[in-house]
């Protein structure tokens, strides 16, 4: 959870600096390019990190092909849910679905949407996906009790590979750890594709 504090601190500093207008003009006029370059660098380093994780493919084989479909269902459910929310609020449906397709990966989805659509949708993506991580931790015991162990993988979305993995294991049992991890990895890959896709609709 401490990473969330770092994120909120960065956001607060950025917003305050932006409101006070103390951003250098060279940064202001190139901010979208800056964000894009930083994002590519970030994904490069995430790739470095992933290359050291040899267990992903082995674990996927271990649980069988059917389980690989679970994150696809979780993705579809999240996006449909966001669509319904968009209909209720009469907001742009593509943007609503793009926010829902962040699957809890707030840093990436928020920065992508800030660059692609604008500050408003980017901020909403950040808030919505931070809420997703926090809420899934809070509701986990209830989900396991009333909806079952497989459903326990759903609320955390992309975060079930790291931050909410211990919570899933604690309430749904250690037999769900591999499924939880693989689902989180798959959903993270989908974030990279689906967020820009829905933002472009």
């Amino acid at each position, binding site marked *: 959870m401490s990473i969330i504090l770092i994120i909120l601190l960065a956001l607060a500093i950025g917003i305050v600096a932006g409101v006070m207008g103390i951003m250098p003009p060279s940064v202001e006029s190139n901010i979208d390019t800056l964000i894009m370059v930083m994002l*590519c660098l970030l994904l490069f380093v995430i790739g470095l990190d992933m*290359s*050291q994780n040899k267990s992903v493919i082995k674990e996927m084989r271990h649980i069988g092909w059917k389980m690989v479909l679970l994150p696809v269902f979780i993705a579809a459910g999240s996006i449909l849910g*966001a669509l319904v929310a968009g209909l209720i609020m009469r907001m742009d449906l593509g943007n609503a679905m793009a926010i829902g397709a962040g699957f809890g990966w707030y840093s990436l989805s928020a920065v992508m949407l800030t660059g692609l659509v604008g*500050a408003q949708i980017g*901020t909403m993506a950040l808030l919505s996906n931070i809420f997703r991580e926090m809420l899934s931790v809070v509701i986990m015991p209830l989900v396991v009790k009333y909806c079952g162990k497989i459903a326990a993988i759903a609320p955390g979305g992309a975060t079930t590979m790291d931050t909410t993995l211990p919570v899933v294991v604690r309430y749904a049992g250690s037999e769900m750890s591999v499924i939880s991890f693989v689902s989180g990895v798959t959903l993270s890959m989908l974030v990279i594709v689906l967020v820009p896709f829905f933002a472009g609709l």
Partner: protein
Amino acid sequence: MDGMVTYIGLLFISLIVGVAAGLLKGRFSGRLKKYVSSAITCMVFVLILLMGLKTGSNEAVINNLGLYGLQSLLITVCAILGSIVFAMLFERLFFKDGTG
């Protein structure tokens, strides 16, 4: 839409180059792994800071932050409920018919 394709392409290429570079390098030492993980934290910090700057300099967003917060929460609740319903549907389709 062309911009989107370039965008996705650039992000994916960055990711793949990262994975390839890591595989070429072989097993990372404990020290290098630490560097990688703090690099990720630092970059996320800078990125969110830039995002905050963009948000803070946009008056329309700042004046409606409360409203946007509520709307974001509604999207979260609906997305979580949708994902739970679909996960249960998945379980019923693939694991309750005696073959799972």
